[in-house]
């Protein structure tokens, strides 16, 4: 048979457990445990909505199709802006070490607001025209993204190593920061590499 002191300890333990159980709803309102890691995703898919069939060898006049997608895992709703830019091999990419976007100006923008856990994907079509060649330089005059025709006049030098005139379509993910009341670069981007084929150049 247990002694009275042992029963006293049991009652104290039971009272502590019971008090904690009754107080747990209040504690849950006051104590905020750290949540999951917050992040966003951006992706580019090929014409069949897979990670294959990306356009690479491109030529004037032909329309190419890709899919751009964004997913929100920030823990609450987020306002995203996807900025499409066009670069050659010498233009700056976004700097991931300092979280700075590319200094190129955007050619096209998507605005989308997503709830936590929500995904968004859309088709983007692009084509090139007014392409010219001067010695070992190619100049893309016009880029059309969806229904918008943009004058880019983007030169590219002949790449000896990879034998081609290389460009990239760059998609940067920006997010609206309610604290600063401004849109800021979300340190995420993706690109597709394009080779302007010789047959397209006049």
């Amino acid at each position, binding site marked *: 048979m247990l002694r*009275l002191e042992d*029963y*006293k300890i049991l*009652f104290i333990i*039971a*009272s502590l457990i*019971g*008090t904690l159980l*009754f*107080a*747990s*709803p*209040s504690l849950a*309102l006051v104590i905020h445990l750290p949540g999951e890691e917050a992040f966003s995703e951006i992706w580019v898919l090929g014409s069949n909505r897979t990670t294959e069939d990306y356009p690479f060898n491109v030529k004037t006049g032909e329309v190419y199709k890709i899919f751009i997608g964004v997913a929100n895992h920030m823990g*609450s*709703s987020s*306002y995203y802006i996807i900025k499409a830019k066009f670069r050659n091999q010498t233009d700056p990419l976004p700097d991931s070490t300092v979280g700075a976007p590319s200094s190129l100006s955007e050619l096209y*923008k*998507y*605005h*989308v*607001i997503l*709830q936590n856990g929500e995904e968004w994907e859309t088709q983007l079509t692009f084509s090139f025209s007014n392409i010219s060649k001067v010695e070992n330089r190619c100049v893309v005059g016009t880029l059309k993204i*969806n*229904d*918008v*025709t*943009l004058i880019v006049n983007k030169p590219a030098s002949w790449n000896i190593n990879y034998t081609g005139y290389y460009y990239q379509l760059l998609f940067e993910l920006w997010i*609206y920061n*309610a604290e600063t*009341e401004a849109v800021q670069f979300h340190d995420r981007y993706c690109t597709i590499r394009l080779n302007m084929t010789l047959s397209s150049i006049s």
Partner: protein
Amino acid sequence: MKMLFFASFVCLFLLLSLTTVCMATSENEAAAKVSEAENAVNSTYEAVQGAEKAGANVTGLLSVLNETVGLLSEAEIAYKNGDLDGAIGKADQCVTVANGILNDALTLKSSASENAQMIFWSTLVYSSLGAGAFAIGLVLVWGWFSRRYIKKMLEMKPEVA
């Protein structure tokens, strides 16, 4: 004849200048409208996010807000394409819809904040009362148990081994 020619030239010059000024004003107006639409969307998004943080269900508002940012995108595309009237029209639509959502979001935030406060205080009061009642009950039980234990011990006959 010379006077007529000079007068025609002056009229043409004035007409061209007026057209240029009108176009510049129209482009500035379109740019300002698109910027206004952008600000309206930003403010509305902040309000909706505030309502969401207060615990309101903002699924419906976000759905309408997404249509609004679609209008903003269309306004920007129209502006890039040189369709200034189209840009102004879409931007005005965007501002109107955004302001409507803004009022709804602020109302929703206010009621969600009140509900959240009421839930907070009622939870605090009930759980405190519950914890207190449990502790008091346990003390009473302990008092009864200890008396019974002592009484039982006193009634026991000692055994000599």
